[in-house]
């Protein structure tokens, strides 16, 4: 099995998948499809962990992958879609900038990241490619958070960013001790729950999840 597959290219392929799902956020209009994109993003991440686990042969990576799969592919997406249903959010995600422009900006961001990271000397566990992709995912999801109005899209953007951070950490250190990963998962789960509750509260208070309304809070 181990000899049949070229793991280096498999890992590269999976990380490109992560990048693509992140970019796809820029062009998606429906919240449901955003959640689906997140599902795929997390799925690719899980597969990446599994493949690294196969390469390194370390058992605790399997566990991390399993945890990743359960939390990010099922618990969180289901929780968010539940909130979306509860709030009866309209389908559109209402970006500030048009889809095409945001795609262009994402491209520019990726270019910057690639050129910036190509020069330095980085000690990476995986290929340099993975690090570049992970930083790009972080920046793109940050941009997604900037360009979207709805509180719920912010949450999804944050989740993408977390995936990017996870990938970056994974690529630099070849995976952290299990206890830290457990902590991170727990943190994220809590974060999502809290943000979800906040979104509902915002909806109740301002009768919209439009974050523009928050400027009214300023004294």
């Amino acid at each position, binding site marked *: 099995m181990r000899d049949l597959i070229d793991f280096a290219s498999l890992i590269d392929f999976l990380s490109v998948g992560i990048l693509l799902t992140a970019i796809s956020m820029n062009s998606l209009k429906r919240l449901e499809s955003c959640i689906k994109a997140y599902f795929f993003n997390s799925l690719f991440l899980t597969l990446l962990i599994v493949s690294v686990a196969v390469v390194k042969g370390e058992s605790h990576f399997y566990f991390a992958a399993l945890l990743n799969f359960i939390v990010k592919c099922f618990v969180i997406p289901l929780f968010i879609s539940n909130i979306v249903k509860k709030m009866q959010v309209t389908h559109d995600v209402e970006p500030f900038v048009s889809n095409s422009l945001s795609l262009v900006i994402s491209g520019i961001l990726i270019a910057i990241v690639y*050129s910036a*990271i190509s*020069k*330095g000397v980085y000690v990476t566990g995986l290929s340099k490619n993975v690090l570049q992709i992970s930083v790009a995912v972080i920046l793109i999801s940050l941009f997604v958070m*900037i360009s979207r*109005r709805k509180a719920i899209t912010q949450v999804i953007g944050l989740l993408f960013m977390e995936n990017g951070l996870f990938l970056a950490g994974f690529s630099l250190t070849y995976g952290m001790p299990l206890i830290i990963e457990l902590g991170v998962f727990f943190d994220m789960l809590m974060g999502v729950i809290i943000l979800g509750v906040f979104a509902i509260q915002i909806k109740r208070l301002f009768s919209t999840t439009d974050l523009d309304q*928050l400027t009214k809070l300023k004294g």
Partner: protein
Amino acid sequence: MVMDLSESTLLFVIAALISLFLPSLAYLISIAGAFSFFVLGLSLLSNSASGNYIFKLTPFFDLSFGGDNISGFFLIVISLLTIAVCLYSIGYTKSLKNKRFFGFIFSLFIPSMYGVILSTNIISFLICWETMSVLSYFLVVFENNEKSSKAGLIYAVMTHIGTAFIIALFLLLSYYTKSSDFSVFKALSNNIPLPIKNIIFIFALIGFGVKAGIMPFHYWLPIAHPTAPSNVSAIMSGVMIKTGIYGIVRIGLDILGVGAYWWGILVLALGAISAVLGIMQAVMEKDIKRLLAYSSIENIGIILLGLGGAMLFKFYSMNALAALSLTAAFYHILNHSVFKGLLFMGAGSILHATHTKNMELLGGLIKKMPMTAFCFLIGAISICALPPFNGFVSEWLTYQALISGFNAPPSIVKIISPIFGASLALTGAIAATAFVKAFGITFLGLPRSSNTDHGHDASPTMTSAMLFLSVICLVLGIFPNYFITLFSYPVFNLTGGSLSFLTRGSITIAAGSLSTQAIALSLIMTIIFILLLSRSFFGKPKIEHGDSWDCGIFTLDSRMQYTATAFIKPLKIIFKRVYMPKREVKITYSVDKLFVSSMRYGGDIAPFLTKYILSPMFNFINNVSDRLKFLQSGSLQLYLSYILITLVVLLIFGM
């Protein structure tokens, strides 16, 4: 066996958690914690080195704690007051809303001060410093009304301006020494060029001066301290502002060592300004807690007079004098924490019983709350530096140090030191006026309003806490030599001079001697003597009770008494250049200009510093912030884009 540092801290954490369920028990545990820190402080003072406690935070930064003589001294000061205030809080917080949450914050606030004192590197110092600031902010705004939230805002802003300067000075220090440890700073401080040293020193004066309430950085103090619950005011005025002094001692005297000759003069000048203007503001206050808060500024000024003297003498290598001067400052730090804590507790008991801090509504309380009155009187005598109580001893030492300042070589010092001596004398005299007013108007005479009807002595725990501090005031006053001996290690470490002037029963230095024991003994013996003699010669006096003399009008009431405002009116007129009083008389006439239906008199004073320095400064900052307001639009997306832009720029520069 000295308790371990982490175990003592753990006691406070346990106390904090317990206070969520059983507030009273939590204070008892805090007392145990403070006591173990007290023991630790004593063992540190007696020159036994303590181990360093290092907690790895990240590969680059550790949290490291440890102690030396200097921190040992400050530990004792904090612990002593904390023990009393925790005891007081058991009774005081019973009627407080959210008392569980209050106990939680309070129990964490105390160890944060210990943390500041015991930090031995930048990171742990700054973390503890910020924890202390934030927790004390919560305590200031605890009463949760408009006034307290405004006070809290002013406090938060001022204290963070101070923190900014502190961070800047630490960055400078670590840039020049390539380290973040205080011990390395100290070892390598000679390599720092003098101009940089000067900048670091000025930053330390500003940064820590804000916390200590040195004029002109005192603006927050009289606003925030009176707003907090009284037990918190006691801790804040008694010991929290001393952490600012600790910072100045640590940076100015310990780490930087000898700088330029004007450092000492600058500190002396700031001390004189704070002392005189602080007490001049205090004497004008009607609000008893604000009066006490302003008097804290005055006492910080007196401490600075000692500290500045020590710096000046150290620069001219007059080590014995420097030791004397620093001893004066240290003793006043200890004394002030004791009597200011006592006075704030007294004010708290008054507030508790009468629901007002306004002296114009009080009067005659000595009959309804005799124990509180007794303790407040002891505190007032001590803070006025009257023999044989503790305030006198430290002011006496300060006087002696200042008089010796006339011997310092440069003529500028000779010319300005009489001013410092005179300003200390002026401070003492006005302080006496202020506390005659505070005690006399509040406790004596006829009640001025119905607020005093329910006056009653506080609960046993509160009263015993006040009695405890009263006894300490007396003990520190009568046996100063035993306590001053304790400071000899830190004083020697900081100045290189030793305290060779102590003899049994009295303090004898080159320029004078004092034995408060003899004075106290003489006072007591003379009183007994007078009593016996007059009884034996003239018999027991016959006493009749009658009304006060009322010039024959038979309706002497409380409105004919001198009020708090009237009491200090002569001072207001005499020092009108400082106070710049505004006077407003509104008369409404019923018919023509002959029959007056009502008359309203209003008066106000414009504090000198506030009018000419602070207000223009605040206006400037307000204007600048108004222009920068657009950066803070409140839009989440905008904030996120700041982050994105920063990241991208960093990446581009990294290329």
